[in-house]
């Protein structure tokens, strides 16, 4: 059943198949190659893949060969414009360092019986440790896939009253951050608004009237965000009626007041 579920994988997000080797570099478009190279979860993942590809023993890694391969991959990734994370480069440096340490001749002054630490040891330990979690990730993946075959009940009446968030600390901080941002934006807008001068307001109003041929005065006033803006808008209306070919029209008493452009050349 797991199998059937895997087959219907959604296209959204980044999908992958644990049962396939991560990256078989085969012929194909650049994009395809990019996708496959991008699938490595990190430098350790890439390294494990290379070791397996060489069919090498993890306890006896042929460092020179693997390092060459590793560097080749990184070059390929760069050539394909894949953003190579710094961590990949750090690993490359580590590999090169190990490689050079292995080439060093044994210190002749060291006591005969001294157990020389294998320069690869740390790396092997890390790889082994990492590999456990890589398998654990696969286990989690399978668990959640199985779990997706189980469905919970649809909405019922008593849920409605509770369209709420099951909040965590993360929600609290996220919400707080949003409030702060909103607050900042409001202040910015406030400043921007306050700066509208009378002449800008008149220009703005004129453009609106001539574009729309008529404009509801009340609606225009309602667009204002502050008292000061409203006053500016009010003066602008008076000003424009006085100086431009625009008239105030009220169709019936207490009806809407409309600003209308005077079209048939009556005005100046």
């Amino acid at each position, binding site marked *: 059943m797991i199998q059937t579920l895997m087959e219907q994988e959604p296209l959204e997000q980044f999908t992958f198949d644990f049962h396939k080797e991560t990256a078989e570099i085969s012929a194909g478009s650049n994009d395809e190659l990019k996708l496959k190279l991008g699938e490595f*979860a990190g430098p350790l993942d890439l390294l494990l893949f290379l070791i397996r590809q060489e069919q090498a023993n993890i306890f006896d890694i042929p460092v020179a060969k693997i390092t060459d391969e590793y560097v080749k991959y990184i070059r390929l990734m760069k050539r394909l414009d894949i953003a190579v994370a710094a961590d990949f480069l750090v690993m490359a440096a580590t590999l090169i360092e190990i490689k050079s340490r292995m080439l060093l001749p044994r210190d002749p002054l060291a006591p005969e019986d001294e157990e020389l630490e294998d320069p690869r040891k740390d790396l092997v330990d890390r790889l082994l440790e990492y*590999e456990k979690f890589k398998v654990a*990730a696969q286990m989690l993946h399978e668990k959640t*896939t199985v779990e997706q075959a*189980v469905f*919970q009940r649809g909405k019922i009446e008593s849920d409605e009253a509770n369209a709420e968030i099951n909040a965590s600390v993360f929600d609290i901080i996220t919400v707080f951050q949003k409030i702060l941002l909103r607050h900042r934006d409001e202040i910015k807008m406030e400043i921007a608004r306050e700066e509208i001068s009378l002449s800008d307001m008149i220009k703005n109003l004129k453009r609106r009237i001539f574009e729309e041929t008529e404009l509801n005065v009340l609606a225009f006033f309602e667009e204002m965000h502050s008292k000061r803006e409203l006053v500016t808008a009010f003066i602008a209306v008076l000003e424009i009626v006085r100086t431009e070919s625009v008239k105030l029209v009220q169709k019936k008493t207490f009806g809407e007041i409309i600003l209308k452009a005077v079209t048939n050349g009556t005005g100046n």
Partner: protein
Amino acid sequence: MEPETETVTEIEPVAETEVEDKAARGMAELVAIVEALIFVADEPITTKLLAEVLGEDRDAVEAAVSELQKEYESRESGLQIREIAGGWQIATRTELHEEVRKFLKTRPSAKLSLASLETLAVIAYKQPVTVPEILEIRGVQSASAIKTLLEKRLIVTKGHKETVGRPMQYGTSKEFLIQFGLKDLTELPSIEDFEDLAG
């Protein structure tokens, strides 16, 4: 068509006075109430909470739940009573997923990226764990994976670690147990079991 379950047969005056009086409830009634509460609860409901709300012993509630489970199994219901994230839940049976999905017109939901899954695995097994510690194991920055996991509510913060820089610690959430079908964290296989599998 309305069934309206006529309550005519009032031969045994079982219960109904005030809620609470626990002695008055027969097993069958308790099973029914437990079923109703598991159903209305919008997340897995613990035995403890059931016992508290009903004024019953936890043992009695346990017995009722397992009775209920048996009932569902024996009548080959399309539903099941299951234990998850430390509580009880009614859910559809796995075998019916195709029909259900067809009806809901859903696809299996977007999967986590490989990076997120790995990060989640490290957090699940090493919790509470800090970002530098995760980096140490994975060998790669995990910031965006952590952000995704926080947003999906699969992990939660677990306070600062008392060390240089007081880094934030992370652990898995109840939602993690729910989405991964786990009763509790002990149900996760031991990490050491994975040692040789990969070889």
